[in-house]
């Protein structure tokens, strides 16, 4: 009788059943779409981050140092005096990436020895700057300021592959003329023996091959595909590190379609340390945790271990993502979340209202059942059952709405972009390229007062890592389960309220003559 009565009740009052089911269904459908979108966006963030930090990386350890006044001097090296009296420069400077501090071998083994750390790989991030060009003779700061047109032609051109070229904002006052190129390349020394953690973990080899342990001391390089494309380099070609040729053995890209890896190219760690004179030192330590639940505790142990280091988890790094991806993320996380909460409340309200008014309408019917001997429990079960089955239908409708909704979102999905606003940001936008401390210009070269007005963190990293990707949200099991549970909860609440009211009915209402 329970099922017969339940089935009859829902079938004969189909309009009400469907109305409540649709209210619950569309609202949980929305919840499913929103949470899938939110998951999709955080996946997208992970994709971008894994492009930058490698897939198996849970935590990165870096150290930030402010440039000191008595830092390394920039030596332009020997300069030829040209026939026309101009000075020609062609010099390479290879140094640790800007603001990056170094860790020694002991720090690395401390990190790998920390409880919960399964792997740790150190890399040495280097920045190679190539100055090339001529400076007109006699152009000293004391000479007459050049005419705007003259400066225009003499403005140093900054070649920053794949990067932001908003570039040289300030013209070099007192810079007499000539042609001058600054070429910056980010190079990362990686340990071929531990590629499963770090920037090259999870990359796709586009051509050639990745490093092998036998490459440890060879002059070989693996190129980021974007860098290779910009500079028309291919496997078999050559890149120069401090004037020395390295054979290109492979070209890699992150597994996500259009992201970039963290550096322009990679060379064996030992070679990088040797070339930069940083034997045994690394700038970045990439850490894999044994379990994602341990990340927070590992992070805090590492912070205690290395007090002046920056220890970042993927989540910390995700906060530094900017661009439309993070806008989408905050949109989904705020607006849509509230929207779905409101829609859910409305649906719950509708479910409660209809169940309750159903009990009112059926007062005599339910009273009669009590009068003929039905226990209150049985009537409660009946009302609750009707409500739960209705919400089950709602859950089913919700899944369809959710799947269709996700399909539609994917069909019209916007392409999102993300860039990593480096945590090592100094002074914000316009901070630019201030000539390194100790920069000794050649005779007659006065550094531009305002620096070359780069954006963000200046050259290299930040700007070079702008990534676009098409948002793809997927259906996942737990989202569906949560949707179903929410619908059932709505049914449970409405049914509990309705059956509570039914339980209060006196069987004497059966005798009331009013219809």
């Amino acid at each position: 009788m329970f099922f017969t009565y339940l089935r009859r009740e829902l079938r004969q009052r189909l309009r009400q059943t469907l109305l409540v089911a649709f209210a619950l269904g569309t609202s949980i459908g929305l919840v499913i779409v929103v949470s899938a979108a939110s998951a999709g966006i955080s996946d997208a963030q992970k994709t971008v981050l894994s492009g930058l930090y490698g897939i198996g990386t849970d935590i990165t350890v870096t150290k930030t140092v402010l440039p000191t006044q008595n830092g390394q001097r920039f030596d332009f090296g020997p300069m030829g005096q040209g026939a026309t009296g101009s000075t020609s420069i062609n010099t390479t400077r290879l140094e640790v990436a800007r603001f990056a501090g170094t860790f020694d071998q002991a720090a690395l083994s401390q990190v790998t020895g920390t409880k919960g750390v399964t792997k740790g790989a150190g890399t040495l991030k280097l920045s190679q700057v190539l100055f090339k060009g001529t400076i007109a003779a006699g152009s000293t700061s004391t000479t007459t300021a050049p005419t705007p047109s003259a400066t225009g032609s003499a403005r140093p051109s900054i070649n920053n592959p794949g990067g932001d070229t908003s570039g040289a904002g300030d013209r070099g006052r007192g810079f007499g003329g000539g042609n001058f190129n600054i070429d910056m390349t980010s190079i990362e020394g990686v340990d071929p023996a531990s590629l499963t953690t770090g920037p090259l973990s999870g990359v796709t080899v586009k051509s050639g091959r990745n490093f092998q342990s036998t490459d440890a001391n060879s002059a070989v390089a693996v190129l980021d595909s974007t860098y290779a494309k910009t500079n028309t380099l291919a496997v078999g070609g050559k890149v120069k590190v401090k004037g020395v040729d390295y054979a290109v053995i492979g070209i890699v890209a992150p597994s996500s379609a259009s992201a970039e890896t963290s550096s322009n190219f990679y060379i064996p760690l030992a070679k990088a340390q040797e070339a930069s004179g940083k034997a045994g030192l690394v700038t970045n330590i990439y850490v894999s945790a044994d379990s994602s639940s341990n990340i927070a505790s590992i992070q805090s142990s590492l912070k205690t271990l290395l007090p002046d280091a920056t220890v970042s988890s993927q989540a910390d790094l995700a906060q530094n993502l900017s661009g439309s991806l993070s806008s989408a993320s905050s949109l989904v996380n705020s607006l849509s979340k509230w929207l779905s909460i409101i829609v859910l409340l409305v649906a719950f309200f509708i479910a409660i209202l209809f169940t309750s008014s159903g009990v009112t309408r059926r007062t005599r019917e339910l009273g009669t059942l009590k009068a003929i001997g039905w226990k209150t429990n049985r009537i409660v079960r009946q009302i609750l059952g009707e409500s739960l089955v209705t919400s089950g239908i709602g859950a089913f409708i919700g899944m369809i709405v959710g799947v269709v909704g996700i399909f539609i979102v994917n069909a019209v999905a916007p392409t999102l972009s993300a860039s990593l606003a480096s945590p090592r940001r100094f002074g914000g936008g316009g901070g630019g390229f201030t000539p390194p401390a100790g920069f000794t210009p050649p005779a007659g070269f006065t550094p531009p007062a305002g620096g070359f007005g780069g954006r963000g963190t200046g050259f290299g990293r930040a700007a070079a890592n702008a990534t676009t990707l098409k948002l793809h949200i997927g259906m996942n099991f737990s989202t569906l389960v949560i949707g179903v549970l929410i619908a059932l909860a709505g049914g449970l609440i409405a049914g509990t309220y309705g059956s509570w009211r039914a339980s209060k009915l006196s069987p004497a209402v059966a005798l009331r003559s009013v219809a």
Partner: protein
Amino acid sequence: MTTSHLYSLKDLTKTYKQKGKLVAALKGVNLEIARGEFVSIQGPTGGGKSTLLQMLGGLDQPTSGSITLVDQPLETLSEAKLTEVRAKNIGFIFQNYNLIPTLTALENVQTALVPSGEGKAESHARALAALELVSLSDRADHLPAELSGGQQQRVAIARALVKNPEVILADEPTGNLDEETRDQIIELLVALNKEKGITVILVTHDSSVANKAGKRLHIAKGNVETVTR
């Protein structure tokens, strides 16, 4: 007290509180009803007929006094126990039939067997037999809305008798029916009373119905009198 008495009411009162005012619906009713009697209750509207029927049916508790069904003092029973008494011993028939609109005739009859936990096949057979008794077995699959008023009331009678109750309580069972149908229903109740020995207590405004009863009660302003012919 003799066991032949089905009901025994002593100084039974029922007072309702409505908007702060007390309404005395029954004012000290003393009454005995024997097993197998056919009792009619008449009286002006608002006189307390339905209230008395509620007391007899264990649908509500009296304000004071006692009401004994066989040997169970109903006024002392819990709601759960009263539900059991109703399920086992009492069949109700209502003026508006009170069938479950979403269930078929057969299923409506079966609802009366739900509390006894009757098996599916057994319940089906008994309900069908009850419908047979009211000559409606050919309408077993019909919904109440597909039946006439008289047919609906016959389904309700089948629902009341299917559990073989001690007593059938009917509140104006023919109030909504034409004369011909009314007579069919009353004949049915008379037959049940005669053939099955079921006690029938019915409330009616209709003297021609009341005339069929072996015992006629009149209730006005909460006071019950036995009408003598």
